[in-house]
């Protein structure tokens, strides 16, 4: 393994030449625009959605409570998040095996934000040719105006992205007014700037270099490919030998294939590769070259699809198999995990009970001979409404709770800590025993929770 690239003199991390991707229209471009709009719309609008008088999706880190459409999660539910991440990873594997780098081309935040930043750039600086000309031209007031306008829009968009991001962790309806009155908290300001800067740098400058040099997924995605995976393919059999020709000439008679070598597929490529050399690691499967080539084929009155989504099998004239051991395994696993996750969320205890033994004394013997242990119990109500919880003890003969109250009112999403004393007759205790503490909702069929605690007494 070599860590430092040694192609001396050239840099790996800055494009050797700035890539000015040519703009393109076509059906996959339409799909990409639709995907970008829906995903960004979801990201920017979701924090503003209210649910029962509260922000619907709020990961309230300061309070360590996570609200998702009326469901309340605590850090104790962390395994659910892990579960969700496993589902996400497996979905990625599943869809990669079927459709190649669909994620990269349509859904990855890097792709989606880059798309917006490129659109802003195009709006300010013009199309590819105009941009190249502008970059080469000396600094005139016109160039300054266009570059400054672009920067201003980029920064504004990046800053608002930062605000929205922080809005997922700190109520956005308080955040935006606080910004207007300049009364934002220190850390909130810091993270807005941090995230805004990351957006600006990643989408404005790094762009597809992130995919080439920084993305771990890009490096291992090819391990999930097989001959039946959908990839962007150039039909070499049909296209070669490539060459330019007049429009009305019979290419076959001249010994030419369908590729007119217009290099449009290279010009539109955001990673600057030539798809005609076959599948390459840099290809993020954005399908811009398909759109470009189909447009050319149409103008040449050739059939579209010289570059197309195809599997290696179909390129070789064989049948593409969707159901194969790998996809079946991923599919079954994924389905099982999703069902399991649904059950785990639906079945989770809405009331939770934590018991912490008093650390100072093991036990105390009362005047009447009974043994007393002291605990602190934490009652957690994850439900959306308040609960009156009745605390009881069982599993130890004659044990009872000695407390001023036996019922506790716990509001929605509240955690309360109460000290309790459990007393048991001398004859039922011998050394360390187990005792069952329950918190039961006062309503019929209400939620309840049980915890096992240690009850310590003198050894008989």
């Amino acid at each position, binding site marked *: 393994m070599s860590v430092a690239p040694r192609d001396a003199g050239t840099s790996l991390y800055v494009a050797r030449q700035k890539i000015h991707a040519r703009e393109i229209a076509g059906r996959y471009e339409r799909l990409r625009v639709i995907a970008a709009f829906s995903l960004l719309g979801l990201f920017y609008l979701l924090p503003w959605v209210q649910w029962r008088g509260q922000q619907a999706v709020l990961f309230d880190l300061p309070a360590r409570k996570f609200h998702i459409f009326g469901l309340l999660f605590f850090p104790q539910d962390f395994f659910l998040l892990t579960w969700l991440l496993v589902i996400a990873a497996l979905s990625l594997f599943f869809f990669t095996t079927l459709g190649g780098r669909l994620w990269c081309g349509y859904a990855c935040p890097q792709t989606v934000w880059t798309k917006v930043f490129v659109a802003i750039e195009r709006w300010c600086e013009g199309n590819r040719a105009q941009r190249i000309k502008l970059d080469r031209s000396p600094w005139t007031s016109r160039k300054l105006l266009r570059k400054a306008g672009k920067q201003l829009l980029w920064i504004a968009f990046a800053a608002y992205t930062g605000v929205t991001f922080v809005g997922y962790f700190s109520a956005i309806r308080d955040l935006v007014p606080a910004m207007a009155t300049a009364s934002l908290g220190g850390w909130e300001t810091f993270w807005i700037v941090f995230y805004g800067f990351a957006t600006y740098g990643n989408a404005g400058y790094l762009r597809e270099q992130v995919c080439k040099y920084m993305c771990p997924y890009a490096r291992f995605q090819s391990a999930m490919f097989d001959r039946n995976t959908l990839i962007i393919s150039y039909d070499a059999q049909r296209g070669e030998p490539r060459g330019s020709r007049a429009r009305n000439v019979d290419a076959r008679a001249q010994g030419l294939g369908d590729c007119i070598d217009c290099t449009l597929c290279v010009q539109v490529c955001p990673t600057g590769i030539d798809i005609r050399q076959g599948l390459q*690691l840099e290809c993020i499967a954005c399908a811009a070259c398909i759109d470009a080539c189909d447009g050319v084929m149409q103008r040449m009155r050739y059939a579209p699809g010289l570059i197309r989504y195809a599997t290696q099998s179909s390129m070789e004239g064989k049948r593409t198999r969707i159901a194969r051991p790998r996809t079946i395994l991923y599919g079954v696993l994924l389905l099982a995990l999703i069902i399991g996750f649904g059950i785990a969320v639906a079945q989770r205890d809405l009331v939770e009970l934590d018991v912490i033994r008093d650390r100072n004394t093991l036990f105390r013997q009362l005047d009447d001979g009974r043994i007393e242990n002291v605990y602190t119990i934490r009652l957690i109500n994850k439900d959306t409404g308040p609960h009156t919880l009745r605390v009881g003890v069982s599993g130890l003969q004659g044990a009872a709770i000695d407390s001023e109250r036996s019922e506790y009112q716990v509001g929605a999403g509240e955690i309360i800590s109460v000290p309790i004393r459990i007393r048991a007759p001398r004859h039922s205790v011998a050394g360390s025993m187990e005792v069952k503490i329950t918190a039961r909702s006062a309503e019929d069929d209400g939620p309840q929770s049980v915890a096992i605690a240690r009850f310590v007494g003198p050894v008989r």
Partner: protein
Amino acid sequence: MRAMSTPSDPADGTGRTWCHFREDLGVLLWSSFLAASTATLLFFAYFDPRLLAADDDPPAWLADRMTGYATGFFFFWGMCTIASFLTAYLIDTRPPERNER
């Protein structure tokens, strides 16, 4: 592991010094960022920054949770960067093997 399209190493083996330090710093910071994010997530899922300060005299910077999270994150990031840096440095500066050209 190398990207497919990058040119291969110069065969004379002259590249033994770390000539891409600045570029590699990006990779170091980025990979440690990923590791640190995961570490922060896991760590603070189990430990409440306020409980960590359940001491007689909690330091002021641990008093509120946001500061605790941020401090934790930058601590992890720093540590991961050190580890990445040392890894890269040691791999890059190890003496050439005898039979290597």
